[in-house]
């Protein structure tokens, strides 16, 4: 496995697996994440998987204490010590996909008040709104990473046929659950935030729920599919959650 380690300040190190987003690289990211989850490194606080990297956050003084006990190389540098731990952990990992992807179905009520920009996306691509929905629902999407905002999934796999530019001026309030398109990406807003994506629909599912542990519906590595639902179903599903 080809990777580089770099410090991000004095208490984080990034395992960088390249620049290009690909499913193969993402498998490596997930294998590393799985290992760190099962066998946390001594002194590690937490880690963040991204498209082509995993960032490990650590407490340098704890890493130092632990390193002194074990008599590791350059025992006075927490960074060197944590890098040593990461290297020996990665050494155990092969390129095969170790984690089982979860399949998650996301019901979406497309168009209307819940997806006010679907017409625009259709016009931009010379399609009908039904075609936009068809293209959006027939693909399988990979959750590459969760980040930016709580529970926000970075999804890969959207067809270029329904790509659309961001709005010129962002909306100040986008309801939680809104499904949008920006460039060749699609995404779901987990919480009410401002945002500039073209909104094509809304899911009644809660992507971020403080009362759940973990608080997010999706995890990096999940495979998701959207399926269309009617306004009535939307109301029913949404009501059922309250």
């Amino acid at each position, binding site marked *: 496995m080809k990777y580089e380690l770099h410090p991000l300040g004095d208490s984080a190190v990034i395992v960088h697996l390249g*620049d290009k987003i690909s499913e193969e690289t993402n498998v490596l990211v997930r294998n590393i994440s799985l290992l760190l989850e099962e066998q946390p490194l001594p002194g590690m606080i*937490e880690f963040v998987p991204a498209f082509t990297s995993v960032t490990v956050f650590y407490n*340098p003084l704890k890493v130092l204490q632990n390193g002194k006990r074990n008599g590791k190389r350059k025992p006075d540098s927490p960074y060197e010590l944590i890098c040593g731990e990461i290297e020996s952990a990665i050494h155990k990992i092969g390129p095969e996909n170790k984690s089982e992807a979860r399949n998650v179905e996301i019901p979406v009520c497309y168009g209307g008040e819940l997806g006010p920009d679907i017409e625009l996306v259709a016009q931009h691509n010379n399609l009908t709104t039904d075609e936009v929905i068809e293209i959006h629902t027939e693909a399988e999407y990979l959750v590459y990473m969760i980040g930016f905002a709580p529970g926000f999934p970075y999804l890969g796999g959207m067809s270029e046929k329904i790509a659309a530019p961001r709005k010129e001026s962002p909306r100040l309030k986008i309801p939680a659950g809104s499904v949008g398109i920006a460039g060749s990406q699609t995404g779901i807003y987990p919480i009410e935030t401002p945002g500039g994506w073209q909104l094509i629909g809304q899911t009644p599912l809660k992507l971020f729920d403080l009362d759940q542990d973990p608080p997010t519906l999706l995890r990096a590595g999940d495979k998701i599919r959207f399926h269309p639902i009617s306004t009535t179903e939307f109301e029913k599903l949404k009501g059922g959650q309250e």
Partner: protein
Amino acid sequence: MINVKEPGLMTTVQDNGRNGYYSFGMPPSGAMDKYSFIVANLLVGNDENAAVLEATYLGPTLEFDCETTIAVTGGEIPPKLNGEPFGLWKPVHVEKGDVLSFNFVKSGTRVYIAVAGGIDVPIKMGSRSTYTLCGIGGFEGRALQKGDLLKTGEASNPPASTEITLSEELIPKYGNRHEIRVIMGLCSYRLTEESKKKFFDIEWTVTPDANRVGYRFKGEPLEFVEREQPFGAGSDPSNVTDLGYPIGSIQIPAGIEPIALLNDAVTGGGYATIATIISIDLFKMGQIKSNDKVKFIEVSLDEAIEARKELNGKLDKVKETIKTVSIGG
């Protein structure tokens, strides 16, 4: 119970922060100036991590409905009890009905108000810290408002003696010009050599965009090395493939104005992070305000660890002082 008579500009409940949820997109929040935060807790006999109030620029007015001990630390926003000024950085006894208020800020940006027993709000995802952008934690997930009633917990230790005086070296001074130490990377190679030099040569001015999410700086434009952007990265040369941002990381969208991400920041995104502020200087950032001048200084990882040990040494001295005075008194 503490009755919030006036909330101040931005007063929130904060503790040491929320760890373990970064990969879900949840930043740590927590007290911005951790040194002042910990000392405030120690002075009232609290656990180091107990929840306190963090007030920015303009302090709140609070009425206490029972006898307790409080301590105010941090920026020089002079506190008053029933209108009488009292000193920061020492425990103060308050009686039932006493009112804590503040004068205008003289230096620094944030004060910490610790109350014996800590501010008792529900623990959300392992922390009492408020993350206002998401409405999570703290008092109803938001900054305090007039009329809020805050509960306090049981104190774990007796408060420090009100006779206590911390030595000068343990009390930080906050000016208008600051040196902030950083570690280069991850993407400093994306800047041209000339711009990299400029980044450290310029004295940056903090813009009005300076809050718990991050600080934006004004100076001169910087240039990125042109390149063919990798698949998945944005089109601007300051873009990279999206990755996790650590707290303290500095990005320069389009090379225009550097932004330092702080406790309530987004956890990831697609801008090249040029450098990261060392953890100990993040506490200093919490006392910097708009229009202050900042110079970034490059340091090594070893120097960052030394700075951390030095700060821990100061905290040990605070603990010693408290212990000695308590036994002696």
